[in-house]
């Protein structure tokens, strides 16, 4: 993987947060179609792991992170070019389709009889949940603080908890296995997704970033539930 050092690079390696798996795979196909002879290679993973890999010298050209904090790690190491926030993600309350605890709004989550799953504060969706709850002036005692939003969602899908705070994108991706309940305080707790080309990246990398930022890219992303920045 030394595409960045060769003459006419036809390959671009993109490190992207796992939550972007579906949308970026789609965008990668479009990019390859639009630029015949090129190849986009993805490395999806937890944003923190990706940041760690990049600072340890991974051959990445583009980094799309699920939180500004992880992007900051890379930038602090002097490896990131200009960062742009390309989407935001907003929280919703996810409940099982039969909604056993009859949850309707954020306040219902404070009921001790309602089992709630939140993300851990260390991961973006957890930080956002804390912000939203603070904004609403509510105190929720969850039964679990999940490692990532997918794990949180799984708990709702399997009915282990009665409600959880997850991203709208996840509710859409679950294809009806959970029901999403929007709530107003979500607006005060949006999570920014920054993207940047990395040090020594080929020109093609910027082209990919451009695609993500283009209208075409935005369409793909909003269809999946992301919001424009």
């Amino acid at each position, binding site marked *: 993987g030394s595409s960045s050092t060769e003459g006419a690079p036809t390959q671009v390696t993109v490190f992207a947060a796992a939550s972007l798996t579906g949308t970026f795979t789609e965008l990668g196909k479009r990019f390859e179609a639009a630029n015949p002879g090129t190849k986009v290679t993805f490395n999806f993973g*937890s944003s923190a792991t990706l940041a760690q890999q990049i600072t340890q010298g991974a051959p990445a050209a583009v980094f799309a992170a699920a939180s500004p904090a992880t992007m900051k790690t890379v930038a602090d190491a002097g490896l990131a070019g200009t960062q742009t926030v390309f989407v935001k993600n907003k929280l919703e309350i996810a409940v099982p389709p039969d909604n056993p605890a009859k949850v309707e709004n954020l306040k219902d989550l404070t009921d001790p009889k309602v089992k709630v799953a939140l993300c851990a504060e*260390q991961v973006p969706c957890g930080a956002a949940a804390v912000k939203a709850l603070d904004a609403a002036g509510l105190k929720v005692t969850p039964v679990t603080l999940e490692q990532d939003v997918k794990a949180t969602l799984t708990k709702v899908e399997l009915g282990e908890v009665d409600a959880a705070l997850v991203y709208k994108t996840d509710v859409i991706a679950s294809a009806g296995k959970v029901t999403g309940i929007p709530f107003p305080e979500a607006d005060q707790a949006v999570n920014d997704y920054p993207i940047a080309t990395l040090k020594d990246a080929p020109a093609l990398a910027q082209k990919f970033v451009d695609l993500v930022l283009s209208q075409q890219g935005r369409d793909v992303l909003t269809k999946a539930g992301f919001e424009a920045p």
Partner: protein
Amino acid sequence: MPWLLVVPAMLGMVFLVLPLAGLLVRAPWSTLPERLSEPQVLEALRLSLVTASLATVICLVLGVPLAWLLARTDFPGRRLLRALVTVPLVLPPVVGGVALLLVLGRRGLVGQWLESAFGFSLPFTTAGVVVAEAFVAMPFLVIAVEGALRAADVRYEEAAATLGASRFTVFRRVTLPLVAPGVLAGAVLCWARALGEFGATITFAGNFPGRTQTMPLAVYLALETEPEAAIVLSLVLLAVSVLILVALRDRWVGAAA
């Protein structure tokens, strides 16, 4: 010296130990006292040790007989069963957690019955952590002990039978002591695997400080925000486990001599 043995052994040793050296070098040691004074860290450490030990006990109680059944008896389907026992090894732990939820969760096959009969549900409890760890770690014990049983000389068991020992007595007083090193090895594997278990635990039991947050979970979350803190936490876990293993081995070896 048999260099053909010593050289690869040394290489293996370096391969296993060097990355630890890397961690040791990079770890921000100055933050260690601060970390250790965080109650959450000690809590997670304690929880890890307790749950891993309980899981090991469960694995010993259920797994050693299972290994015996696989090694010493013959019944239809034994070969398939032996292969199935290996399965939780291969299962990505997160999927293992999902599988446990499907069976023991609130709406699981057995779990919903537990819930309605006893009002008791395993997920999000410390007991759930133990169950998840035992599920993931038991195959290690079973396979190691089965290997030891197969290598043991069955004639001692025959001798015991002629002295009037029932099959259980033979097992307890002859077989088990004879394969003790193998059981010990299996228990170490099992305990260590349980101690390091992450995926199945967080999926089945969730992550709540003081109740279900074990060290690996704390480490994982720390990695999200402060990777260097995660390294320190891992090293604390390592140091404690190494100390315990060295101490226990000494005691066991002392008792055996």
